[in-house]
């Protein structure tokens, strides 16, 4: 609540004199640590895990993050039941289809890879409250030039926080929208750099699916709101001139977290929000609950958690965008951009 205002606060005080510039700094160190990305939930599987290695901090060409291939991964619960994951593509692993974790069980993740043997601390799966209501609200940010502004839609989830327990949650979001493009205006540059007009016949209207469009993790702790009906910001969809061409379907996935998992995401949010201002926390290692048992000194990045799942969705009509940004003109076949001309089965 406090953090994001400071860079501009400093600006305010000295009347627009502050500035942020890129600087050329070469980091010298390169730690190659295992990064574990993924969790299991009560949502019917498959549940996906990504294994990779951290790389040198630099431009995309400097540090290349390698996939951790050919690992054996399995998840064990407190009843001794084990589930093995299959490697779908290098570094990408999946639980069997339909695999669901259960409320009240405790789970452990075990990884055997060429870089070592890893094990997570046990994580207990706590129940999550149901979503009573989803609401969309238009949000416009102040800007210097009135015509150029940032805006979007905030999605609020209303739920009853259980009074008898400490509750931690996070939200994931998946969006589906229609984008209209102009393949008839398609151009390309020839070998001499001349722009050649080459209209395409298809396709001008596609469905696109996307995962949450923001860097921040939407998390919640009931430490100050225990037992109340809460309305919490669960997602933000920026209006980029293309998303709200027709209407936007957002599916909000509400997950439970353990206290430790909440703390991990909170730490990650803090690190992501470092912006050079006076409220910046000291940089910290984003290590979670996974231990390298071959070499306990070596840190592991990521957190394995098991979450309860509840989901709901709403359509956001174009009319919800009270002040629209200029439409984005895309002179391309929408399928080339990753769209699909077929209407998804869940769309209505």
């Amino acid at each position, binding site marked *: 609540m406090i953090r994001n*205002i400071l860079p501009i606060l400093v600006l*305010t005080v000295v*009347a627009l004199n502050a500035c942020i510039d890129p*600087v050329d700094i070469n980091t010298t160190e390169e*730690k190659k640590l295992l990064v574990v990305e993924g969790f299991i939930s009560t949502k019917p599987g498959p549940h996906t895990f990504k294994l990779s290695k951290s790389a040198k901090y630099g431009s*995309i060409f400097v540090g290349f993050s390698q996939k951790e291939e050919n690992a054996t991964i399995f998840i064990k619960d407190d009843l001794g039941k084990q589930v093995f994951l299959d490697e779908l593509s290098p570094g990408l692993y999946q639980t069997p289809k339909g695999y669901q974790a259960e409320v009240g069980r405790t789970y452990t993740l075990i990884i055997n890879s060429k870089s070592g043997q890893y094990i997570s601390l046990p994580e207990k799966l706590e129940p999550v409250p149901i979503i009573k209501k989803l609401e969309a609200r238009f949000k416009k940010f102040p800007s210097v030039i009135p015509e150029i502004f940032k805006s979007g839609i905030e999605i609020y989830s209303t739920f009853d926080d259980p009074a008898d327990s400490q509750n931690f949650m996070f939200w994931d979001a998946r969006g589906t929208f229609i984008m209209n493009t102009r393949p008839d205006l398609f151009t390309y540059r020839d070998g001499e750099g001349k722009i050649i007009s080459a209209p395409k016949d298809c396709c001008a209207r596609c469905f696109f699916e996307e995962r949450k469009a923001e860097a921040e993790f939407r998390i919640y702790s009931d430490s100050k709101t225990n*037992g109340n009906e809460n309305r919490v910001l669960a997602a933000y969809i920026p209006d980029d001139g293309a998303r709200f061409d027709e209407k936007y379907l957002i599916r909000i996935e509400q997950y439970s977290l353990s206290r430790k998992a909440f703390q991990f995401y909170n730490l990650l949010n803090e*690190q992501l929000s470092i912006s050079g201002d006076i409220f910046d926390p000291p940089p910290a*290692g*984003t290590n979670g609950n996974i231990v390298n048992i071959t070499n306990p000194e070596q840190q592991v990045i990521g957190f394995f958690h098991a979450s309860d799942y509840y989901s709901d969705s709403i359509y956001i009509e174009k009319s919800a965008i009270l002040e629209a940004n200029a439409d984005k003109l895309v002179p391309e076949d929408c399928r080339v951009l990753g769209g699909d001309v077929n209407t998804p089965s869940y769309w209505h």
Partner: protein
Amino acid sequence: MIRIIITSLIIAFSILQIEAQGRIIGLETSGNGPFLIKGKIVDDETREPIIGANVFIESLQIGESADEEGKFELSIPKGLHQLRVSSIGYEEDNILIDIRGRGSITIRLMQNINQLDEIVVTAVDPDANIRNAAAGVEKISMKSIEGLPPFVGEVDVLKSITLLPGVNSAGEASSGFNVRGGGYDQNLILLGGAPLYNPSHLFGFFSAFNSDMINSVTLFKGGIPSNYGGRASSILDLDYAKGDMQNWSGKASVGTISAKISGGGPIIKDKLSVLGGVRVSYSNYLLGLIKDPNINNSAAQFYDGNIVLNYNISDKSSIDYTGYLSSDAFNFASDTTFAWGNQNHVLTWKYAFNDKFFLKSSIVSSQYNFSILNNSGFSNFTLDSKIWDRGINADLKYIIKEGNELLFGIQSKYLKINPGSLKPQNGESSINPFEVPLEKALESGAYIQHDVELGKWVGLSYGIRYVDYRYLGSKTTYLYDELFPLSPETVTEVVNYESNKVIQQYGGFEPRVSLRFSFTENTSLKFGYNRMNQFIHLISNTATIAPTDIWKLSDQYIKPQTATQYSAGFFQNFANNTIETSIEAYYKSLDNVLEYKDGADLILNPQIETELLSGSGEAYGLEVYVKKKSKPMSGWISYTYSRSLRQVVGPYPSETINNGLVYPANYDKPHDLTAVLDYEINPFVKYSAIFTYSTGRPVTFPSAKFSFFGDDVAYYDSRNQNRILDYHRLDMSLTFNFNTKKKWLRGDWVLSVYNIYGRKNAFSIFFDDLPGSPPQAYKLAVLGTAFPSLSYNVEF
């Protein structure tokens, strides 16, 4: 840019060169004279002649008194001579003159403002730096602070402090300062005897007090006398000015962001005087003029007010009252407002039993409150925190004989802190009211100090202070499983303490010793040792001081911070004490300094001990200082080499920082150079300049990056192993003094430019993965351009 610095330094040094040769009088003439020199002695401020002022040349044993027009005539042979000029009510001046032929000279004397002050004689002897036993003590008059280039039209005491050797700050947007490698919270700032918990307005851009109300500023970096205690690193003692017992007068000043007015005089002549001052910002109005809606919808305002009352009961006793109030509110074009304020009261009774035995007793009350108000619909709240600091002191002084004094006394304070209480603002909010329990403690000290001159060449000041600290109930405390890191999950027992029951006690002796050996009248060698305990800590998990920081009392988990300092210094004055030089070295060890676990949750946490770590530190440094005091050119150059290091090793990885290795503190800046110049071009125009350079402060660079749910995230596993770019800045100002003979209206226009060559000094360097660019490093500069300002000061 570099050229500007070099040119400026060349000018400064060439002026210094001319000065060292003395003021040239007359054109080069053959023969050795003596030549007739005509002179005039005037008041520095009013330019009125000083009747009866004395001029004397000791080497020639000649002298004269000024006539009714302030004029005198002397016959002086060719060459360099030391001219001593004195008059009652004025500070004595020693001028080096270089007689080349017949000529004339005008001499201006400064009024001795302390001359008529009955109770406290603060006049500093010109050779005080040599003669005092204590090293590491800096006394600056407000007059010399006022001569420095102001920032946005305001003279700033705290910013001036950072120009001294051994003192630095984190950057433009920070209110704290660090003394000899100590933390921000290790400085005790006493405003008229009352501790000031937040010394800044507008997030550190201004000091929270009106410089017109201050008489003198004393900073104890080392050699801290035993009558001061409670903080580990330094004492900044701000002494109030007083209302005149004879005449009414005032001052007003209009700057770019704020305006201030002060005035005082006798309510009952020779009996009761008053001095009051008010300072108000009009930054809100200015913010409204800026087009950026982020800014014109913001609000930033502050004010402060002071009052000083002095009542002489009799020749033997007097009563003083000082009151101070400050308030800040800041709101960024959003729903969150920050507000903070100080409120101090001090009542002092001074009594002389006879001409050798004096009592000073006082009742002190200091309050600091901080609030965050959030109006964001469903989760609106008010978060308040507050400190109450109330003390009584009895300080006695017994003069055994001249140069042999005994100081002793007792001091006790009751501390109460509300670490945070959260309330919903209205029924719409889903926030539950929540209060972190109040903290209470009693901190007492008894001290004795003996200052003695052992013959002409040795001075000794030694003393001891005993401190006793009791952390009091009522309070719910927690016991934790010793086999695990402290965490809310590892609580084994909950213990409730009744009201005023002692939960934890700390105590100890704090020896203080200062020793001086003089070899000549102008040379001395000093040694110092002091030990200090601190029982109240600023909990701040940020690189610099932030308004959201909270204070915490020592309890059974948070042990007192302790600093032990050894120092040695060599002091040498030249040219009849008009040039002071010194070299001082120190070593300081710090125990129980506070650090924080990664991702620590500090706000509204009743079990804050689970987020804190305790570490050790050491600091050492060498300070070189050259100061020139005479006119028309004065100023100083100081260079400090210092290091401030920390180490945190806990039994668990989560309780260890930087893998247990030593790392630099956030404000560790090894090289620090400051040059201050104050030059009177003529009686009406004064030029001043400040140049500062320091090594960039430490930052942490990522040791890796990783991809997580689509973001490239920086990974850190060390602390403060890299540095931001070096900091340097040149400020200049011109003061135009339109003096008239009419005493009721004298004005100064001050034109100043801060950061004249517009260096974008980095406040921080951070790493981010912004859309549209590769993950990379960015630099935030708070002030990216030269910042001019104009202010008008008037006295009436």
